[in-house]
């Protein structure tokens, strides 16, 4: 409209004028597709027969978009799209570097597996309540957090997946779910609010919210601005989201209450978003502050690793056991952040990918054990080795993976982290990583021994068991185990992804350049 009344304005300094080709949309598709699908399912919420089909179509398309994105990032480096044509730092930028693209692909893969599991686990009531829409909106939020290049937008995506996770958490409205949801909701709300406060301060200091722009300006403001305060507050906020000790108590209080498929997605994805945000803020934005805080992060990492797994030792309910194992894994990832060398960071990235797959699979397996043995309690389970040998094999594989033993995916990231810790002269961190691995072996080994090798218990209620579905039951865990075995036996492709991601984190120059070269170019 302004063009009618005034002379034509040269907009090349404000707008992206180049043509956006179809393949550029791969940056936004992993977020836009699930939002559209989730919205569509909310509209037809009573046609529950449609839900699963639409959800699978959308998830498949999302996964394909993630793969295209990953392939483009591997070939051409960081992919950028700025919303509404405004040039960065004015427009909200979506920016997929190797870290974000790899995490988004893994997360979508794990969610798809969980959605297949939900075919059996979620009944018509749960679907009418909106399981699949919430699932799609949650994966949209998670992918958005992984792919956005704007720190306030990161906050918005955090809220998107947190709000969707509320819906999933109280699906069914049992008393224990409401109890767990109260603690989960209040503590997560406080964590995201601390994130928001810090972002407010950050904006006050930097006058920008684009992460590449912040990284570019951080050096100049380090003397005058309170960057240390901002970094510490981010550690607090994201540490709480990632369930790092001593801010982890909401996780064991709530993750065992919802449906097992919901637990699986939460345990696999949500804490990893916190880890991702820590990696992003502490390596791309505030590398100097990370070095100063590295001792604090190391102490937090050791305590999270060891106390997490010690908590797992004391649990009777296998879902709560796995919850504590998730926390212990977060500690291992924080150890890599504390060391901060490229090797340690690539170890953390690979561990996070492994953890998304394995923790999802562990929860799903717990669900299968419940179907086969009629209970989640270690007091009541027993005799599953004789009745379900395939289940026993999968449990053994997951135990090896979670503990970091060969030939599964946990080995290589732990090797990298241990090596990096030795190189960094952090002997106690090395010790803690190895100790937590030993204790994880004991924890999951005991679950294996009690529920599989031990003879069937008289306490169990056989009426509560049901046969395991070959596809929605065994199939989902097996599908999740495929990449886990792949990482274990032939890690080179995954190592290359992790190393590229870590190199991008250690040298934010390319991350900054990918956003601001667009200004001169097109």
């Amino acid at each position: 409209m302004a063009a009618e009344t005034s002379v034509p304005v040269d907009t090349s300094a404000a707008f992206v004028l180049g043509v956006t080709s179809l393949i550029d949309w791969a940056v936004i598709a992993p977020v836009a597709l699930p939002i559209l699908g989730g919205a569509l399912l909310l509209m037809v919420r009573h046609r529950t027969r449609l839900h699963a089909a639409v959800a699978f179509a959308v998830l498949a398309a999302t996964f394909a978009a993630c793969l295209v994105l990953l392939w483009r990032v591997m070939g051409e480096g960081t992919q950028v799209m700025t919303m509404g044509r405004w040039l960065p730092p004015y427009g909200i930028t979506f920016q997929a570097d190797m870290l974000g693209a790899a995490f988004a692909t893994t997360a979508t893969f794990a969610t798809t597996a969980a959605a297949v599991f939900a075919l059996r686990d979620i009944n018509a009531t749960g679907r009418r309540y909106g399981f699949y829409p919430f699932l799609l909106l949650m994966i949209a939020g998670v992918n958005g957090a992984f792919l956005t290049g704007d720190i306030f937008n990161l906050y918005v995506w955090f809220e998107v997946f947190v709000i969707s996770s509320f819906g999933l958490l109280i699906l069914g409205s049992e008393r224990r779910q409401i109890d767990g949801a109260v603690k989960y909701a209040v503590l997560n709300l406080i964590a995201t609010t601390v994130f928001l406060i810090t972002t407010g301060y950050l904006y006050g200091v930097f006058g920008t919210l684009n992460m590449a722009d912040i990284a570019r300006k951080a050096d100049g403001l380090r003397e005058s601005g309170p960057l240390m305060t901002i970094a510490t507050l981010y550690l607090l906020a994201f540490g709480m989201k990632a369930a790092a000790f001593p801010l982890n108590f909401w996780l064991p209080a709530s993750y065992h209450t919802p449906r097992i498929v919901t637990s699986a997605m939460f345990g696999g994805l949500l804490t990893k978003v916190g880890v991702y945000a820590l990696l992003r803020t502490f390596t791309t934005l505030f590398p100097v502050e990370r070095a100063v805080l590295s001792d604090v992060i190391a102490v937090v990492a050791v305590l999270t690793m060891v106390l997490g797994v010690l908590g797992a030792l004391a649990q009777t309910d296998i879902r709560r056991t796995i919850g504590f194992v998730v926390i212990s894994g977060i500690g291992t990832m924080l150890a890599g952040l504390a060391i901060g060398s490229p090797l340690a960071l690539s170890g953390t990235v690979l561990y996070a990918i492994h953890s998304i797959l394995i923790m999802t699979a562990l929860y799903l397996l717990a669900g299968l054990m419940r179907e086969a043995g009629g209970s989640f309690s270690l007091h009541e389970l027993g005799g599953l080795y004789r009745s379900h040998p395939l289940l026993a094999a999968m449990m053994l594989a997951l135990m090896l993976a979670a503990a970091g033993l060969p030939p599964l995916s946990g080995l290589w990231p732990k090797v990298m982290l241990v090596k990096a810790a030795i190189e960094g002269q952090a002997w106690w961190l090395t010790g803690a990583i190895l100790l937590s691995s030993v204790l994880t072996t004991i924890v999951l080994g005991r679950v294996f021994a009690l529920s599989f090798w031990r003879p069937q218990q008289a306490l169990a209620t056989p009426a509560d068991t049901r046969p395991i579905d070959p596809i929605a039951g065994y199939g989902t865990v097996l599908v999740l185990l495929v990449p886990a075995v792949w990482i274990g036996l032939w890690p080179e492709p995954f190592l290359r992804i992790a190393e590229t991601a870590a190199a991008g984190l250690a040298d934010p120059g390319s991350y900054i350049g990918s956003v601001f070269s667009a200004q001169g170019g097109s």
Partner: protein
Amino acid sequence: METALTGLVGLFYAVSIYMMLSKHIIRVLLGIAIFGNAVNMTIFTAGRVLREVPPIIAEGRTALDGVTANPLPQALILTAIVISFSFFAFLLVLAYRAYQELGTDNTDEMRIAEPEGEGLPPLGY
């Protein structure tokens, strides 16, 4: 102006944290409501309090004349208000359901998900 607002923000935080330390869910919720407002004030103050002139480019011009208000913090605050509002609405419903189902609003007594005296897992077989 910023100094006065900063003092107010500090007061908001003090009140909200005091409320959130309570055992009773309803006080925690009131604390969270104040916490959300404190954050909005923080962002507003962090964006600097400038002139009360709307940042609209006059007809026939291509740039702003003089100092205007900073529109970005207001956009951020609006987003934050929307999110905290929907969160708060959800939490109200949840707390009410929790009060109905669990019969208490004392977080110390909400032990359905984590029963007390659960005991150790079997130590051998």
